[in-house]
């Protein structure tokens, strides 16, 4: 019952949980940056003129989006060591997996973002004598990003929650740290609850900020 909760175990395990949280946060930030970069390229490939590029990009995105993330994590953990010929460790494997996986989801967002930019903008860019890359980098993408900031951030919150799935390959994120601490102190109930509270506090704060941002950006437009 509630009275039996022993909250005194939280304090000694805090440094340990902090290391876990730092890994979760790093994983989120790296997968976000890498995912948005690769995702933008994928989106450009899907919207571009080259048929084979479009086909490859859509196949990749659709494939990633129709498999459970857990299976993708297991796949990468199995296949990367086979390809490079040596074990790589759960943490690095997680970094690569999440970047590759999230790129598919970010690319769908960026595709919508690019399509939300008025056609005249692209034509104006070409009319000014800009090349494709210049038009993209200087005219289209800045506007696409701006329009999609709230959606990109919402996806990042989902990404942060999904990082807990690295549990399956034993990488030490926040949840795994709570799991281990719970076993060490023989207090799993307190530790699972505490990790849930941390996740909730972080995600709720972030999504409230995104909501406000959404209103702010909507007014400007």
């Amino acid at each position, binding site marked *: 019952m509630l009275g039996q909760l022993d909250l005194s175990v939280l304090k000694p395990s805090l440094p340990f949980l902090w290391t876990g949280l730092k890994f979760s946060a790093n994983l989120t930030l790296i997968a976000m940056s890498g995912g948005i970069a690769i995702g933008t390229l994928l989106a450009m490939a899907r919207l571009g003129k080259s048929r084979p590029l479009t086909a490859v990009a859509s196949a990749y995105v659709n494939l990633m989006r129709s498999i459970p993330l857990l299976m993708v994590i297991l796949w990468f953990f199995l296949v990367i060591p086979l390809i490079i*010929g040596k074990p790589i460790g759960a943490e690095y494997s997680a970094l690569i997996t999440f970047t590759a996986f999230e790129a598919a989801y970010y690319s769908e967002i960026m595709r919508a973002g690019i399509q939300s930019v008025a056609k005249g903008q692209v034509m104006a860019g070409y009319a000014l004598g800009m090349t494709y890359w210049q038009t993209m980098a200087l005219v289209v993408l800045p506007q696409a990003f701006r329009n999609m900031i709230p959606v990109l951030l919402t996806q990042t919150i989902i990404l942060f*929650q999904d990082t*807990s799935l690295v*549990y399956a390959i034993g990488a030490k994120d926040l949840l795994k740290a709570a799991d281990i601490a719970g076993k060490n102190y023989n207090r*799993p109930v307190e530790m*699972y609850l505490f990790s849930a509270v941390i*996740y909730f506090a972080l*995600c709720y704060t972030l999504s409230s900020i995104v909501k406000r941002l959404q209103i702010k950006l909507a007014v400007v437009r």
Partner: protein
Amino acid sequence: MKYHWNWGIFFEQIKYGDETYLSWLISGLGWTVAVSLASWVIALLLGFAIGTVRTTPRTWLVRLGNAYVELFRNIPLLVQMFLWFFVVPEFLPRNLSLWVKQEMPAKEFVTATVCLGLFTSARIAEQVRAGIQSLPRGQRMAGLAMGLTLPQTYRYILLPMAFRIIIPPLTSEFMNVFKNSSVAFAIGVLELTFQARQMQEDSEQGIETYLAVTVLYFVCAFIANRMMAFIEKRSRVPGYIAAAK
């Protein structure tokens, strides 16, 4: 890349026992489908109820619904699995707690289903709310003006239209349920991902194993998609949104 291929592995016997690996995967598929469909039913019922409540004029009901959605949306699914499995039984009354921990039949399956069902219901509630709010205000007003009560207005006017509007997001949610059911492996449900890990360790034929499991998930998602497309087609209202064809 050195890898010993063995596509016949599925018909070979497991190391200790007389089952084949194929039988592991088939039973895994069975549990995946069972968990997914059962939680989908819970999610639809609860999701529609809570989503509807969030559009009523009762402020306290709206707040309660919002809190419910925020709670389930801001905690990772895997953490929720652990909460339902390890934490919730501790907070039940003593006798019930003992029963849940020791005697409840198919404990892992029931826990995973409840967890995934409630998790998905919060997402459906959000879609239902958006669907109802996307209807023109006049629809509700007309219903009330004709003398229908508020529940009648919802039953005969708002919900039937909102349901049709949100079929596309419901479709992806239905596919998500199958994908998310993979998380149930963590509390020991013997579903596809669990069997994939087990078969990979036992047979050391990881690529064949994962390929087969990936294809099975793919098929699940595809069938889910076609089922929803069928419902979408059959429930079209002539002269409304995507009905023209």
